[in-house]
C-alpha cells in the first residue's frame, strides 16, 4: 500500500478518526466540511501531531506513536499545496519556486527548475510577487513549488476550489500530468463530485 493512515486527532472538542490504506495514483479525501480533511493532511505533512496512530507512506514510517516515531515536517519530503497556497509574499515567484528546491537533497529531485516552469507554463511570472498573481497563476506556482521539493508524495488541499470552470479543467489536466509524468502518489482533498470522478483512483470518505 502507498498510503497507510490510521490516526486519531483531537482538535478542540472535535475528535477526528481517519483510517485508510490506498495504492498508487490519486486518493481523494472526501467528506462534509468540518470532517477534518485538512487536519488529516496536516498530520501527514507533520504540521499537526496526532494523538495516536500510524502514518506510513510508500513504506516509510512518518508517524507511529507506539514506536515513538514522528518525522519532523522538513524531513518528510512531502509536497504540500495548501488550500490558501501560502506563497511567500516577500519573495518573487522564482524565489518561491527555488525555496524548496534549494533545501532538497540532489538525489531526491524529480524535476528541474526549467522543466517545472515550462510544464506549468509560468515562465512569464518568475519576476513577479505572489500578490500580483491571479488565482490560477498562484495555484500553478504553488504546485510548482511543491514539485521542486523533490517530494515522495503530494498533498493537495482543495487545489481547484475558487477557480473558474475553464481554469479548473486546465488544472485537472495538470494534476493528471503530474501523476502520470512523475508517478507521484497524491492525496487530494475535494468537495466537487466531478473532480473526484475524473481524478480519483481511490476514494476515502471522512465523516
Amino acid at each position, binding site marked *: 500500500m502507498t498510503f497507510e493512515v490510521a490516526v486519531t486527532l483531537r482538535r478542540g472538542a472535535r475528535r477526528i478518526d481517519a483510517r485508510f490504506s490506498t495504492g498508487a495514483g490519486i486518493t481523494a479525501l472526501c467528506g462534509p466540511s468540518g470532517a477534518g480533511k485538512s487536519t488529516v493532511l496536516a498530520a501527514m505533512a507533520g504540521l499537526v501531531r496526532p494523538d495516536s496512530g500510524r502514518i506510513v507512506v510508500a513504506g516509510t514510517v512518518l508517524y507511529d506513536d507506539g514506536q515513538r516515531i514522528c518525522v519532523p515536517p*522538513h524531513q518528510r519530503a512531502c509536497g504540500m499545496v495548501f488550500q490558501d497556497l501560502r506563497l511567500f509574499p*516577500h519573495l518573487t515567484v522564482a524565489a518561491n519556486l527555488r525555496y524548496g528546491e534549494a533545501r532538497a537533497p540532489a538525489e531526491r529531485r524529480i524535476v528541474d527548475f526549467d522543466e517545472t516552469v515550462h510544464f506549468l507554463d509560468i515562465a512569464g511570472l518568475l519576476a513577479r510577487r505572489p500578490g500580483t498573481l491571479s488565482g490560477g497563476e498562484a495555484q500553478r506556482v504553488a504546485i510548482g513549488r511543491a514539485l521542486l521539493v523533490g517530494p515522495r508524495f503530494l498533498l493537495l488541499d482543495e487545489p481547484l476550489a475558487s477557480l473558474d470552470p475553464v481554469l479548473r479543467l486546465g488544472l485537472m489536466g495538470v494534476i493528471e500530468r503530474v501523476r502520470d509524468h512523475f508517478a507521484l502518489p497524491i492525496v487530494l482533498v475535494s468537495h466537487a463530485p466531478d473532480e473526484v470522478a475524473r481524478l480519483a483512483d481511490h476514494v476515502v470518505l471522512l465523516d
Partner: protein
Amino acid sequence: MALCRADDPLVMSALILTPGEWAIVGLSLQVSGCAMLAALPVAFALAWLLARVEFPGKVLVDALVHLPLVLPPVVVGWVLLMAFAPTGPLGALLERMLGITLLFRWTGAALAAAVMALPLMVRSIRLSIEAIDPRLEQAARTLGAGWLNSFATITLPLARPGVLAALVLGFARSLGEFGATITFVSNIPGQTATLPLAIYAALQVPGQETAVWRLALVSVVLSLGALVMSERLMAQARGAPRGAGGTAHDV
C-alpha cells in the same frame, strides 16, 4: 541692505559647531547608538515571545516591559541606581565578574536610554510579528526548512519594517532621554552629559542663553533627521508586499 550672506565669516562661524558642541553631539549619538545595539535583540526576543508564545505570567511580563513607558523616568533611573550601585545586586555582580561599573559612565547612560526605549521597540516589533501569518512558516517547514531556517528566511524578513521602525523610534527616544539618565548616572560632561543634559546644565548658568539656543537647534536638527528617516522607512515598508507587517507604524 545689510542682509546676512552665507559666506559672511561671522555667519559661518555661527553655523559651525565648536569642538565642545561636537563632543556633546558625538556622545549623544554614541549613547543612543549603543542603546539601540543593546536593546534590539532583547526587544525582538520579548516581542516574539509576547506575539507567539502562551506561557504563565505572560500578563506580568507584558506589564513589566511597558513599565518604563508609564513610570516617571526618575523612578526608572532610581531603580537602575539601586540595582547597579556597587552595593546593588547587579552592580556588585558586574564589579566582581568583569571589574566594571556603569555608574557615572556613558555605558550607564546607554543602559538608561535602552531601558526607556524598550517598550516602544517591543510594541513596534510585536505588531509586525503579529501581522505575519504563522501558516507561512508552516509552509516553509514542508518545503524543507527547519525551525530556525524558516525563522531566518520567513519570519525575520517579514518583520523587517517593524524592526526598522523600532530602531528609529528607539533612537529618537534615546536622543531625548533625560530623567532616568540624570538620576542614574548624573550629569557629567564628556561621560553622561548628552544633548538634553547639556542643555539642562547650560540653563542652570546665567549668561549661557546662546549655548542653550545652539544645542536646542542641534537637537531639533537631529530629531528632524530621525523623523525624516522613519518616514522613508515607512514608505519603503508600505511599498513592500502585503502581509509584511505594514501596520508596524501604528504604535
